[in-house]
């Protein structure tokens, strides 16, 4: 039972990281319909931005993290501006955008691997590494911060989407792009904003993992694909769904190893995913996606 509680807590922490990736990716996918796998590259970049800001520029940790989040938001925005929008201007198909995104993911990951070596680059996180022991559960302050930041990120995003004019513009484009254009919303600018916001949400996830176990170049691929699984499970177009989907995957992976050997961890999520899309293809709360819609 103690083990189960520990796995539950770890699952919650890991799930928070997936959730941050998933709400950002889900926002971008729901709004632009781009299958943006390069989100994984933004996730990896964020970690190295923080690492560089702290160890090379000697900034205090909190400042380094803020700089890294802003830099990641700009990176995401530039990916849309310089890659996807240019392709769309040339009349590219959605598959072309996906392939270019995949190309960019591989390219950036390997550039990071050459510049920083494939080995994890550890960061100095000081007191955040202190252990917190709650009954049988062992965590660090960083883990608790992770869960708190995921909730804060989700809350901030929901508030932004519901209350601000720009947030409402994103929702308008997400639900009916043509209609949004008709009422005078500039789709390109909304897309740029969506990429900036979505990337700013992936950044904390990338940075938090790096703070825990070091920055690594190839971790993003796994995270972005799990994010897409979370988004589909939660329901495409639903931010609460993506949040739940991410948390669910983290818990599933960790509670799974309560009964199964840990090397099967990654197989569990995808196995459940396949069963899930048979039973409920639209996810927990999503709009129905018909075969021909996309």
């Amino acid at each position, binding site marked *: 039972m103690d083990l189960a509680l520990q796995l539950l807590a770890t699952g919650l922490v890991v799930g928070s990281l997936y959730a941050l990736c998933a709400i950002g990716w889900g926002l971008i996918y729901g709004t632009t319909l781009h299958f943006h796998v390069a989100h994984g590259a933004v996730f990896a970049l964020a970690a190295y931005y923080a690492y560089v800001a702290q160890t090379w520029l000697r900034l205090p940790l909190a400042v380094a993290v803020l700089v890294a989040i802003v830099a990641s938001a700009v990176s995401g925005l530039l990916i849309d501006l310089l890659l996807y929008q240019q392709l769309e201007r040339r009349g590219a198909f959605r598959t*072309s955008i996906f392939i*270019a995104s*995949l190309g960019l993911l591989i390219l950036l990951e390997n550039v990071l691997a*050459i510049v920083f*070596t494939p080995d994890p680059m550890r960061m100095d996180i000081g007191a955040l590494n202190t252990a917190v022991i709650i009954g049988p559960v062992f965590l660090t302050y960083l883990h608790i911060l992770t869960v708190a930041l995921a909730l804060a990120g989700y809350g901030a995003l929901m508030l932004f989407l519901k209350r601000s004019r720009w947030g409402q513009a994103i929702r308008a484009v997400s639900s009916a792009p043509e209609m949004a254009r008709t009422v005078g919303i500039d789709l390109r600018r909304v897309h740029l904003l969506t990429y900036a916001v979505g990337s700013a949400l992936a950044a904390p996830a990338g940075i938090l993992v790096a703070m825990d176990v070091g920055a690594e170049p190839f971790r993003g691929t796994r995270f972005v694909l799990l994010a897409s699984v979370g988004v589909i499970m939660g329901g495409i177009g639903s931010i609460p769904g993506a949040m739940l989907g991410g948390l669910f995957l983290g818990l599933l992976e960790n509670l799974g190893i309560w009964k199964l050997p840990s090397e099967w961890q990654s197989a569990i999520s*995808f196995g459940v995913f396949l069963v899930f899309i048979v039973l409920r293809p639209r996810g927990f709360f999503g709009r129905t*996606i018909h075969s*021909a819609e*996309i």
Partner: protein
Amino acid sequence: MLAYIAHYLVMVGIYTILATSLNLLVGYSGIFSLAHAAIYGIGAYASALAALQLGLGFWGGLLVAAVVGAFAAALVAIPSLRVAGDYYIVASFGLQVVILTVFINWTSLTNGHAGLPGIPRPRVFGLVVDDPFKYVVLSLALAALTYLVCRRLTASAFGRTLRAVREDEIAAAATGKNVVAVKIAITTISSALGALAGSLYAHYITYINPTSFSLDESIFITSLVILGGTERLAGPLVGSLILLAVPEALKFLAIPDTVAAPMRQILYGALLIVFMFVRPEGILGRARPRRAA
């Protein structure tokens, strides 16, 4: 040097089979799969195990590989192709991860990271194919066979249905085509063919381990298709001839191994991006009417 060229041609044959079969999905049906390396691996492991444990010959192994490969793909295709196309990207990635996990962790069957050594050379019509020169013939013959099968398939009524489904699913369904069944069928066929390449590879190298069948490999096969030209059956051959020569060319530049491997990946990534800008239809491809911007 001659043996070297022979080895290169054997690999061109193997990758032409892989890319031609993947092209059925990516080029002709608009279904994007990230699991082709896993299918390749399933073919390799299935026929290696058939040879080592059941004592099956080359043809038997080929058949086992095709059946197991088709079955694995169908298992994923049936749930995920019922819904929108993007689901298959995620599901196929899942298949890739699960299959690789199986190769690594089901040690009693696959021997884990250590891999399976001692796979016998094929015996074809009473002749043991044991040197690279003979293997060139076998490899290119199977590649040619795959090409012919795919040509028959894509030129048939079924091939036209595929293209109709790719261009407009609703219109295809409206003319009475069972869109889902067509998509599942082509995924199964493509995987059966891709698994053949795995069988060929296992009997050629005589040793297999999980590292040959990773996600990077899936992406490499995709680059072959994109570079050569989607929707052109000769495209994969051109793609394989060019991209398989690249690592060999890099060997002549004195780059340390730790940098050479990522450099290759950077090149593939850059190629994918550049081709989407300059020539999305690939080197041999016919330009398709572009979507109005």
